[in-house]
């Protein structure tokens, strides 16, 4: 009996000690965290002051900040400084933005960013590329190019973006060999960074349109739409027979954007051989082109096609081509099927609302 009480007491004492140790660890950790946050906030203030001074005053008006000089020896401070410069670059434009980039050069932060490229943690590598890109460190382009074939999308996408950011259209040369999918988001980023297509680029563009990587073909089609490259119209037309439905849909959109008098006829000619997704895209294209020569084609689709989606799209296109009266007659015609009447009323109602 005494032994068991003694045993329980020992267990209680052990648990109490454990709780006490845990409390001490939590207190020490919280104190450490507090010290870190105080230090970071102090450093942020020093960095903000430096950035503000460089933006507002001329070089000869600014005296070196003693706190900044002392802190600058600490690698963690330099890392924060680098992050702050990248953030600040997004807030200012014009001379102020150039001065921020000048700070990056003045304090040799390119070396710090380059060191990140060799880190094992992928987010650090991607972050390093982002920083070099934001600060326009074009000298680091050979280093960044190494990452175009990196297995991680996070890393190679940043490298792709960096190349285009520095070199524009010329930076897209990796499209010749890229085996990976270019995501929609990445395509948007790349498109935004390209400001012009040099003359005589048709050969390069043709190569991309023949790529076995569908995302390269789709991206190229978007590029043609953005820059209205009319000279490759006939090459684009051939993509209406591409094995990928998605490529064909994008081809319809591109041909419509580069439209010439034969575009809609071309659409109606290839229409019977297309999958339903492409047929729907063709109907939408006819609707937005407003080409009245397609009226009979649309009426045929409305009456004879078995797919409800096609009938709806055809009815909407007819409405756009000012065939409201025809649609109203069909809706009132007693021989019209119930489904057809519903589709027409749906198309008409949508427009009236």
């Amino acid at each position: 009996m005494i032994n068991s009480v003694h045993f329980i007491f020992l267990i209680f004492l052990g648990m109490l000690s454990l709780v006490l140790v845990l409390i001490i660890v939590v207190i020490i950790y919280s104190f450490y965290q507090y010290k870190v946050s105080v230090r970071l906030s102090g450093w942020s203030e020093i960095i903000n002051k430096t950035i503000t001074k460089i933006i507002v005053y001329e070089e000869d008006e600014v005296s070196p900040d003693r706190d900044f000089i002392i802190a600058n020896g600490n690698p963690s401070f330099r890392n924060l400084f680098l992050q702050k410069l990248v953030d600040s670059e997004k807030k200012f434009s014009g001379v102020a933005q150039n001065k921020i980039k000048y700070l990056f050069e003045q304090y040799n932060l390119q070396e710090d960013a380059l060191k990140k490229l060799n880190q094992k943690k992928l987010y650090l590598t991607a972050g390093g590329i982002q920083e070099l890109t934001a600060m326009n460190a074009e000298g680091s382009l050979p280093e960044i190019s190494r990452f175009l074939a990196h297995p991680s999308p996070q890393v190679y996408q940043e490298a792709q973006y960096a190349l285009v950011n520095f070199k524009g259209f010329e930076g897209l040369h990796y499209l010749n060999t890229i085996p990976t999918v270019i995501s929609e988001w990445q395509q948007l980023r790349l498109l935004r960074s390209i400001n012009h297509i040099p003359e005589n680029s048709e050969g390069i563009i043709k190569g991309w349109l023949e790529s076995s990587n569908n995302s390269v073909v789709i991206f190229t089609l978007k590029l043609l739409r953005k820059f209205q490259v009319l000279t490759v119209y006939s090459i684009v037309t051939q993509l209406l027979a591409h094995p990928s439905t998605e490529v064909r849909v994008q081809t319809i959109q591109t041909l419509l954007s580069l439209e010439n008098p034969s575009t809609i006829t071309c659409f109606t000619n290839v229409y019977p051989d297309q999958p339903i997704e492409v047929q729907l895209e063709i109907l939408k294209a006819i609707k937005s082109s407003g080409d009245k020569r397609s009226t009979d084609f649309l009426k045929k689709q409305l009456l004879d096609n078995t797919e409800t989606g096609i009938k709806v799209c055809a009815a909407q296109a007819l409405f756009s081509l000012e065939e409201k009266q025809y649609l109203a007659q069909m809706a009132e015609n007693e021989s019209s099927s119930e489904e057809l009447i519903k589709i027409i009323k749906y198309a008409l109602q949508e427009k009236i609302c």
Partner: protein
Amino acid sequence: MVILIAEDDELILKTIEHKLLKEGHEVILSRNGKEAIETLKNESVDLAITDIMMPFASGIEILSAIQSMGKQIPVIMLSSMGQEEVVLNAFDLGASDFIVKPFSPNELILRIKRFSK
């Protein structure tokens, strides 16, 4: 001129402050919309520069407050890309000008000069 800057981004706030002080203006700082409205009630301000998105009260609420106080203070809005509709709303409420971020502090000074004449 006495200029109120309402902005929750410390770097932007301080940069505009130093730029205006260098130009010889008097500056009052507010780090949130509520503080800015209180300042406008109690202080005499010649011009206000305000961010649209701020804690406690937005730039639009500051404009409404100025209207309800019956004060004639020119207001320059600092907006971000994609806030076109809010900017239009701000003009309806009496905003005098707007500048889109990322912005050039030099351009802001030029805009302010228009109101100091």
